């Protein structure tokens, strides 16, 4: 049976169109994200590893080298077994630093444009034979199906189609992050097609050709050499070399790197691929021996590479050969599309951009897009030229293995990147250069010589290895050995610079010094302005906006630490767009750092903490314990029920614990790194004022927050840097300070309520006296009013009215005192004002006289009327009422209670002295304790003197007692005074009485 060429071409194009539809559906969101991000999709997308070599060539490989063909997949299995320690770190690096290719990764690690260029060129040289292999496989499969020689124009047509589809799949839009859901889904679908096609052919071979289990057994009995032919080469061939090459190819081939890391949509899928991908490869290779034996048993005339097609043609139907053909197209197209996309990204970042950076007046994005499209076309065309040169000269496996040896040259560089911070760019370049030269000399040049591209002469391999050792073993051993040796020797002989060291630590995820310097651009507008000079206005605005979005910042951001983060983010995003070297160059030139400005301590801490979080799983021994201790200390600070704010030397917030977040309503993320002055009000004022004062403690500082008055105690201490021992003694250290914030709002409210209750209780006790005091003038007024009815003498009338007014004044005074005293005194903005001390004492005496005991004792106010102080009149009256009441209680009827006051420097010394019974020593020690009372239950609350103590303390004063049993008591109060000439506010407290 034969097929027509146009029909096969149309089937191929139709299949590619179907792929495009799948990709398009995924990109438009018609396919659920759960499907495109599913680990199975990821595993299948990695199946791009299986190209025409696997699909067709494995059978030929198995025929010539037996089970050695399995090494190409067993090596991959070994590499994926190391996923947590080998592949996950690479994935983490590529995601964090937006590295889109192996060249980006090396250029980032070794901080060298030359490294990027070398990797790109070598990768191109190593991959072109592989692309040629795919073209050859497709054209050869068409030749098998049509039984006619395939014209070169067909191969060219196939290449043009693939160019178009590669552009449609991966270069339709410019994207800083190479994440194409459509491409991933399409490649996964291709892998599924390959698998189904090969398994179907396998089943056909098993049942249709070999006759099922019994038939196979019979055939093997008749042909016992078939199994022997599979096993024998294992002990004779370069088994271990192939394993090593496949191990490297598993993640270093451009297409593997691209699908495994660059296009990875869900990092959690990678651990699943550790076994899922080897399982896929196992299933794919399971039918290979069966197809080989079926081909041998059926006597098909096609080469062993194309036994799958040959036996399917013998089946008689058309669908099976077409399925195999489509499987072959799948293998080739997937490889070519993904490889070309990966190579075009490398070429763009490391060849085209450094050579011709676009004019900022142009649309940079458009330039990059068209540059990439052009490169895709050029790479596929170069592959086509290579195909023409090599046409029909080599088997599929040979072309593939040449590429494998080429990518294996990156192994030393990768291990240095991941595990050896001492590795340097000179070591990498020397090793890779030597490896590339040996590879070219031993494999590429002989290939071209045999293909006739060079003048025929002795092969290089024959010159250097006349013994005729296996060339793969020979080339791999020498290229890798010399490569690794030079890599190590040159690395040890050279010293990495600061930039390279920083990248090395970033790659091995060890702790290192945090980035130094502050961005000179002071706002996002300046960022845009600076970037516009190299990228054009539109691109600059887009990049800044994108970075702000990524970081959740707003465009009015101006905090230095946040701008530093913005700079880093822009660099990473540009890295995804133009490669790490170009990105670094742009931000270094346009968003300069001022290295003399110290990096904020908060940033350094954040940096170190991030590093520790990422490298936590790598810590061992003492480091684990230290990390646990660090976490414990941090948690203690975080969970303290008191607000903790640590301030760095540059006055920026370094620690902002949970209690601070709850009290202030400012999140830790917003506070850390922010200078104190830039905190939202009123916190900026509160913190800055407190940190500027000499006081280490401030009590009951009142602040209005959201219309509510809050009360805080503030404490601070200087922090010492580890080397600054002077600060340990309490002097100001250079490590900033720690501020503790105690929210007293609830306690102060409670205290105010208690004081009010106490005052109301006092009024209750005064009630009888009040009735008496008001009753007397009322009786007098009644008598005078009766007399007025019969009085005609104008003189007498005036006297009576004056007497009535006098009596009402007495009543008013009593009522005003009571009202003023009983005022609730809720926590409110401080009512302190300049006041005359003797007035308060006088008012207190007036109130005390209302009580029974107060009337029996003579209270004398001997205070100098000139003494003034700053105080809360109502609360100070309460102090004197409580003290005088106690004194009256302790006195006998007829005794005298005296209140003296005099100035002592800038303080006022007040003394309340009674002639009462005094108090024993044990009582005197406890009188200021709350709820302590010597009276009968129900007669006193026990809060009077504790409130007195609290109020005096609030006025920055002290109170003490001097008492002996039987000799009376002296209460001594010391309060800060004001100058005698201090002006007084108008009639304080009067407004509450009317």
């Amino acid at each position, binding site marked *: 049976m034969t097929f027509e060429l146009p029909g096969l071409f149309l089937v191929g194009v139709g299949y590619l169109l179907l792929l495009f539809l799948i990709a398009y559906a995924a990109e438009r969101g018609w396919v659920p994200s759960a499907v495109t991000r599913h680990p199975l999709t990821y595993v299948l997308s990695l199946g791009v590893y299986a190209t025409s070599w696997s699909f067709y060539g494995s059978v030929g490989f198995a025929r010539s080298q037996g*089970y050695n063909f*399995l090494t190409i997949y*067993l090596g991959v*299995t*070994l590499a*994926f*077994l*190391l*996923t*947590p*320690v080998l592949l996950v770190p690479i994935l983490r690096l590529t995601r964090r630093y937006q590295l889109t290719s192996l060249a980006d990764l090396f250029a980032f690690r070794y901080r060298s444009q030359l490294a990027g260029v070398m990797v790109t060129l070598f990768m191109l040289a190593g991959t072109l034979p592989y692309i040629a292999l795919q073209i050859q496989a497709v054209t050869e499969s068409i030749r098998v199906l049509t039984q006619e020689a395939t014209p070169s124009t067909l191969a060219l047509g196939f290449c043009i189609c693939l160019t178009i589809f590669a552009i449609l799949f991966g270069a339709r839009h410019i994207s800083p992050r190479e994440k194409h859901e459509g491409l991933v889904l399409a490649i996964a679908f291709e892998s599924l097609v390959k698998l189904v096609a090969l398994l179907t052919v396998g089943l056909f071979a098993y049942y249709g050709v070999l006759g099922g289990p019994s038939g196979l057994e019979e055939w*093997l009995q008749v042909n016992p050499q078939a*199994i022997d032919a*599979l*096993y*024998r080469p*294992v*002990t004779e061939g370069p*088994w*271990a070399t192939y*394993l090593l090459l496949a191990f490297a190819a598993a993640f270093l081939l451009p297409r593997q790197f691209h699908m495994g890391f660059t296009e990875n949509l869900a990092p959690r899928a990678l*651990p*699943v691929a*550790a*076994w899922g991908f*080897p*399982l896929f490869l*196992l299933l794919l*290779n*399971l039918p290979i*021996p069966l197809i080989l034996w079926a081909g041998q048993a059926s006597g098909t005339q096609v080469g062993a590479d194309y036994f799958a097609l040959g036996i399917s043609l013998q089946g008689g139907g058309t669908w099976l050969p077409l399925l195999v053909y489509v499987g072959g197209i799948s293998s080739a197209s997937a490889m070519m599309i993904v490889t070309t996309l990966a190579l075009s990204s490398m070429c763009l970042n490391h060849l085209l951009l450094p050579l011709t950076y676009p004019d900022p007046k142009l649309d940079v994005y458009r330039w990059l897009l068209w540059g990439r499209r052009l490169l895709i076309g050029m790479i596929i065309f170069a592959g086509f030229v290579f195909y023409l040169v090599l046409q029909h000269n080599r088997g599929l496996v040979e072309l593939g293995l040449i590429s494998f040896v080429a990518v294996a040259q990156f192994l030393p560089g990768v291990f240095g990147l991941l595990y050896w911070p001492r590795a340097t760019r000179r070591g990498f370049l020397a090793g890779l250069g030597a490896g590339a030269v040996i590879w070219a000399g031993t494999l590429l040049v002989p290939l071209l010589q045999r293909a006739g591209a060079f003048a025929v002469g002795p092969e290089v391999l024959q010159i250097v290895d006349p013994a005729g050792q296996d060339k793969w073993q020979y080339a791999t051993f020498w290229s890798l050995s010399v490569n690794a040796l030079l890599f190590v020797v040159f690395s040890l002989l050279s010293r990495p610079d600061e930039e390279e060291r920083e990248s090395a630590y970033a790659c091995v995820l060890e702790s290192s010094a945090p980035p130094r310097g502050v961005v000179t651009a002071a706002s996002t507008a300046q960022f845009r302005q600076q970037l516009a000079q190299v990228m054009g206005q539109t691109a600059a605005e887009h990049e800044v906006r994108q970075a702000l979005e990524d970081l959740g910042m707003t465009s009015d951001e101006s905090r230095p630490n946040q701008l530093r983060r913005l700079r880093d983010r822009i660099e990473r995003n540009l890295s995804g767009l133009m490669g790490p070297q170009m990105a670094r160059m742009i931000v270094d030139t346009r968003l300069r750092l001022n290295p003399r400005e110290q990096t904020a301590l908060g940033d350094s801490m954040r940096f170190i903490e991030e590093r520790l979080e990422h490298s*936590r*799983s790598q*810590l*061992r021994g003492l480091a*684990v314990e230290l*990390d*646990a201790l660090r976490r414990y200390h941090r948690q203690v600070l975080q969970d303290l029920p008191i607000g903790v704010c640590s301030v760095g030397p540059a006055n920026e917030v370094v620690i902002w614990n949970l209690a601070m977040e709850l009290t202030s309503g400012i999140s830790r993320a917003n506070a850390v790194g922010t200078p104190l002055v830039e905190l939202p009000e009123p916190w900026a004022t509160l913190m800055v004022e407190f940190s500027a004062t000499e006081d280490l403690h401030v009590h009951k500082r009142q602040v209005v927050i959201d219309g509510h008055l809050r009360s805080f105690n503030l404490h601070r201490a200087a922090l010492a840097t580890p080397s600054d021992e002077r600060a340990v003694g309490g002097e100001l250290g250079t490590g900033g300070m720690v501020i503790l914030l105690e929210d007293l709002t609830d306690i102060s409210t409670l205290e105010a309520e208690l004081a009010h209750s106490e005052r109301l209780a006092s009024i209750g006790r005064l009630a009888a006296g009040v009735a008496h005091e008001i009753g007397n003038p009322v009786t007098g007024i009644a008598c005078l009013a009766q007399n007025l009815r019969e009085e005609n003498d104008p003189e007498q009338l005036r006297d009576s009215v004056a007497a009535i007014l006098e009596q009402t004044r007495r009543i008013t005074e009593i009522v005003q005192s009571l009202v003023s005293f009983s005022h609730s005194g809720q926590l409110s903005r401080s009512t302190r004002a300049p006041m005359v001390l003797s007035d308060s004492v006088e008012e207190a005496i007036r109130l005390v006289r209302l009580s029974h005991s107060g009337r029996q004792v003579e209270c004398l106010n001997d205070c100098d009327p000139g003494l003034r102080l700053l105080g809360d009149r109502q609360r100070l009256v309460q102090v004197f009422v409580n003290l005088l009441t106690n004194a009256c209680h302790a006195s006998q009827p007829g005794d005298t209670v005296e209140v003296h006051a005099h100035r002592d420097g800038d303080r006022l010394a007040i003394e309340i002295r009674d002639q009462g019974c005094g108090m024993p020593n044990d009582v005197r020690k406890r009188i200021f304790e709350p709820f302590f009372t010597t009276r009968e239950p129900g007669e006193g609350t026990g809060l009077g003197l504790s409130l007195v103590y609290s109020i005096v303390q609030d006025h920055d004063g002290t109170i003490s007692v001097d008492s002996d049993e039987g000799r009376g008591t002296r209460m001594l109060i010391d309060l800060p005074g004001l100058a005698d000439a201090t002006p007084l506010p108008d009639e304080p407290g009067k407004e509450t009485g009317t």
Partner: protein
Amino acid sequence: MRAPTDKGRQSDLVILLFLFALFLMLPPFVTWWATAGLGWYVPYLIWGLVILLAAWLQMRGAKHDV
């Protein structure tokens, strides 16, 4: 406190499995199974065993992650 220990143990197991797979896939063990006159499917069984162990290890690690 448990997490780093578990992760460290997971990495140790990964390395152990890798070494075990190397043992199965490199001489002299390879020479043994290639010359022992075994069935044609034996290499696939060995391969399948390694995959099975890798799957068990990954699922164990995933459980610990949770």
